[in-house]
């Protein structure tokens, strides 16, 4: 594991892990439950800031900070989810967007966490094993859920809310549950991010970050955990991979290429890279074809 000692590469790998947690958790809301949240960065910010604050001021253990950060985000998810889930589609999207922006502006105005200057000197913790431990936990928990009657309830809400109600599923309860679980993991991802970078700034959790996560989910394929994982890595690494191009041309083409790729992918592969298939489904298909 020599490569882990190269600081730059290691940080890239850790950010991949953080984004995997974010994308897989958002997939529960956007992909499986069919709701439309574009404020994931707000939940991430809550976890990040709370965890960092606890770590700096109370020197509580890292694992405790992480989990408290996650729980705070989950509580926020509940608070946002319950009233706003009466809204559908675009309206819900706008409320989550607004919520994310409000969190950011509020953080900008709290001096105890550094306001616009940002928060310095967060104790360094976490890193590769913690991040990937949580990433595996996220993937495991969400994929196990999806294999149960609860997972089918999420899917039923996505497919047809009125029919789901008629079949005895409390659609509001399941929407809120999806939001809460998803926010919890976003908070965890935030905490991991905060303690790895040791520095936080509200601008890291703006609208663009939320969009980044939505893009990961859609690019990977709505409702495919495998897709989310791979897309999270692509979106994290793509700008880095394009860095040499910038050095040669002296012009920053990265975001232009990123946006063009996005448009072209949507036009040519509207279901994302994996559609709603998982690695296991692809493996089954492969075996079928070669037997």
């Amino acid at each position, binding site marked *: 594991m020599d490569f882990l000692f190269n600081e730059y590469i290691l940080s890239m790998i850790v950010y991949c892990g953080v984004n995997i947690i974010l994308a897989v958790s958002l997939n529960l809301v*956007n992909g499986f439950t069919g709701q*439309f949240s574009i404020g994931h960065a707000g939940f991430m910010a809550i976890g990040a800031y709370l965890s960092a604050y606890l770590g700096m001021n109370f020197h509580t253990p890292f694992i405790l900070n992480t989990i408290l950060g996650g729980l705070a985000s989950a509580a926020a998810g509940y608070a946002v989810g319950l*009233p*706003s889930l*009466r*809204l559908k*589609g*675009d*309206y819900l*999207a*706008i*409320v989550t*967007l*607004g*919520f994310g*922006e*409000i969190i950011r*502006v*509020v953080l*900008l*105005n709290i001096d105890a966490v550094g306001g616009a200057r940002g928060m310095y000197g967060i104790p360094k913790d976490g890193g590769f094993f913690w991040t990937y431990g949580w990433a595996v936990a996220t993937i495991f928990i969400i994929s196990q859920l999806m294999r149960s009657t609860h997972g089918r309830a999420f899917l039923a809400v996505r497919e047809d809310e*009125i029919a789901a109600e008629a079949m005895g599923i409390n659609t509001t309860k399941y929407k809120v549950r999806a939001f809460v679980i998803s926010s919890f993991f976003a908070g965890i991802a935030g905490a991991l991010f905060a303690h790895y970078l040791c520095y936080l700034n509200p601008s890291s959790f703006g*609208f663009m970050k939320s*969009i980044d996560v*939505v*893009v990961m989910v*859609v690019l990977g394929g*709505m409702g495919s955990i495998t897709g989310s994982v791979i897309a999270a890595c692509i979106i994290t690494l793509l700008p880095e991979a394009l860095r040499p191009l910038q050095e040669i041309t002296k*012009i*920053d*083409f990265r*975001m*232009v290429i*990123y*946006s*063009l790729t*996005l*448009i072209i992918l*949507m*036009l040519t592969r*509207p279901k994302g890279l994996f559609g709603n298939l998982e690695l296991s489904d692809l493996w089954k298909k492969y075996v079928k074809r070669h037997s």
Partner: protein
Amino acid sequence: MEEFIQHLINGLSLGSIYALIALGYTMVYGILQLINFAHSDVYMMGAFIGLYSSRFLGIQEKPGLLSFISVLFISMVGCSIVGFLIERLAYRPLRGAPKLNALITAIGVSLFLQYSGQIVFGATPQSFPNILEDADLLALGGVHLTLFDVTIFMTTLSLMLILRYIINSTKLGKAMRAVSYNGQWASLMGIPVNKIISMTFIIGSALAAAGGILVGMKYPKIEPLMGTMIGLKAFVAAVLGGIGNISGAVLGAMIMGIAEEFVVGYGASTYRDALAFGILILILLFRPAGILGKLNVEKV
């Protein structure tokens, strides 16, 4: 009291600009149910077309009504083309695809315009040319009514009246209303839906261009990312008034503009961006269809 009136004037002026941009959002949403994220960047393009056309015409230092109108006109035409191309190249191939795809594409187009703008126009803010000399038309005690405020207000008002005429009294307007009511049925009635959608983008983009010019005049620093915040707020204004509803967009924009000026004026300026979303969330929770909108009830 003077302060209050001053804030009101500033608020109406800001609200007029929001209104011009909000109209584009609301029209496109009304017809395609798409949040056209790229709209805010069309507005940015409007400001830059204004900048470059005035340089090209050599009128960047010749303020006057003629300069203003010619720059406004060129920019509106230019943005119409931009809007048309965006719809034709990026959105039309996705007609019928899931909503989220269209939305992501819209975000992609928006990012593309912003960042290619940074390459072409440069990332540092540029000064907008002096195409109209500002002056106090009225100064009563502490209240100033400037030429810019009046120009902004008059331009918005006249464009609004033209739009109103188009939508209510022309064949195109009738077709637009039909498509927004139900695209499929409209197409069965022989309405060329794609053409109407193109026209909607053209009109909306032209209005956004006007917004860009007016903002450029009033706050004379323009840069490629200038659209993001104002775009979000204009969109919020459209939702506030009832998305898909033309008068609603104007009403919402005025409310937003005035509310924002008062928040800034009375000392809570750091919260000005949160205000927009605070209003939005309250509205959506208590009256999800917006002030003038009607909520669609799903038929079972």
